[in-house]
Structures are given as C-alpha cells and as structure tokens.
C-alpha cells in the first residue's frame, strides 16, 4: 500500500478545535486503529490546534491553521503536522517544559506539549518569531487488534 496524504486549512477559531479532532479521527480510520489510539491522536491534535488558536494569533487576531497528515501503511504509522503563521515561540525548550505557560491568568496549565508528548510516539516543534510554528508528531498505529 502507498502512503496517503491529506492537507487542510481552516481559520483560527475555537469552533475548529473539535472540527480538527473529527477530521483526524476520520482520516486515521484507514489504518484500523483501536479506539484508544484514536483518542490519543485526537487529544494530541486538539492540543496543537488549540495552541495555534490561543497563542499563535493573540488578542483575537485571526489567522490560518494547517492540519496535514500522512498515513504510512508500510510502517503502520501516522505523521501529523499542525502549523500556523503566527507570532512564533521565542524559546521552544522553555515552552515545552511541563507547567510552563504564558497565559496563567487565562487558567492555562502549561500542559499542552506534555500531553502531546505523552499521547504520541514523537514530537518535534520548530518555530520562528514573527513567522509561525510547526508541530510534527508521529504515532505507530499497527500491531494492535482493532476493536471495530
């Protein structure tokens, strides 16, 4: 089987957080994932997309978020990319530390990146201040007994 790629752009609106979760779950179905894997991937995508909505375009600014994914059936792996063209992250190592947040007053807990790391197999973040941020995550989906 060949790999399968999808790419989707949408506005940085809170309503699109659940939209992105539904999209990634529907795309992932082709690899016959367990329900647990689907939930893990939805959670990680929700974190990345929410970060783009909340942090990339601050003060109600509107921008575009891109969600791209590739299914690699040979390796039974999904590769997901969430990118924005927003403000960027000045210090990525600091941003990825658990409990680090620039929005404590908004009751954010600084756990988004930690959750992505915990629910996926790999996580890589690249960013340039003033240009935007790209989050790339992979997860192995094969080697399980599908529940449906």
């Amino acid at each position, binding site marked *: 089987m060949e790999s399968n790629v999808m790419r989707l752009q949408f506005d940085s609106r809170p*309503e699109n957080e*659940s939209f992105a979760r539904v999209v990634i779950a529907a795309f992932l179905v082709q690899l016959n994932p367990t329900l647990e894997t689907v939930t893990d991937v939805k959670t990680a995508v929700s974190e990345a997309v*929410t970060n783009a909505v909340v942090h990339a375009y601050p003060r109600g600014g509107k921008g575009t978020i891109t969600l791209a994914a590739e299914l690699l059936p040979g390796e039974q792996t999904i590769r997901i990319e969430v990118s924005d063209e927003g403000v960027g992250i000045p210090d990525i190592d600091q941003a990825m530390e658990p409990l680090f947040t620039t929005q404590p007053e908004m009751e954010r*807990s600084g*756990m988004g990146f930690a*959750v992505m790391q*915990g629910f996926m197999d790999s996580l890589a973040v690249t960013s340039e201040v003033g240009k935007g941020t790209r989050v790339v995550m992979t997860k192995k989906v094969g080697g399980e007994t599908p529940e449906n």
Partner: protein
Amino acid sequence: MNEQRYATAGKATVTRDTVTVQLEGELDHCSADRVRASLDALIADQHVKRLVIDLNGLSFMDSSGIGVIIGRYRTLSRRNGSIAVRGLSPQVDRIFQMSGLYQIVEKCR
C-alpha cells in the same frame, strides 16, 4: 452527532455543604468558558465546601480542562474546601496523572 457535543454542566445535587455535578460532552478550550461559568455558579455560595465532579458523561478532555479544575480548586481551597472527581475515562485519567492534578483533587467512587 452526540460525540461532538460541547461540554456542559448537567445535573447537580446539593447535600449540606457538598455540590455534586455531572459534566457531559467534550471539554476543550472552546467549551471551557461555559463550563467554568456553570461550576462557578454552583460554588458561588460560601457555604459550599466540597465539589464532586462526575466525569462519567465526559467523552473528551484536553489540557484546557486542567485549568478549569485548578481554577475551581483555588476558589474552594480559599475557604478550606476541596474537589473530588469520579467516573474518569482512561484517557482523562492519564491527563490527570500527567499534570499532577491528583495532588490537589481526590479520586472517589
């Protein structure tokens, strides 16, 4: 599609100083404000000392939910109150564990 419903605070019961409330649907950044407001209304009365949140009907939660829980914990701890949760899915339980929420929130049955 039931699965995509935004989280809301459902049925709530009050016994003495304890409020028990059920959260239903998906708790994310988009639905957090509404859930926050409903929970704050339920514990607005200074006599409320304990908030029990039943998460059995919660189909999804991400890190936005952590902030919602911690915020309510702050309010209650100022009056020597506490928060307990029950009915967590394995996914939500993992998020609670990862974030250290169990240091301030009791898991009950």
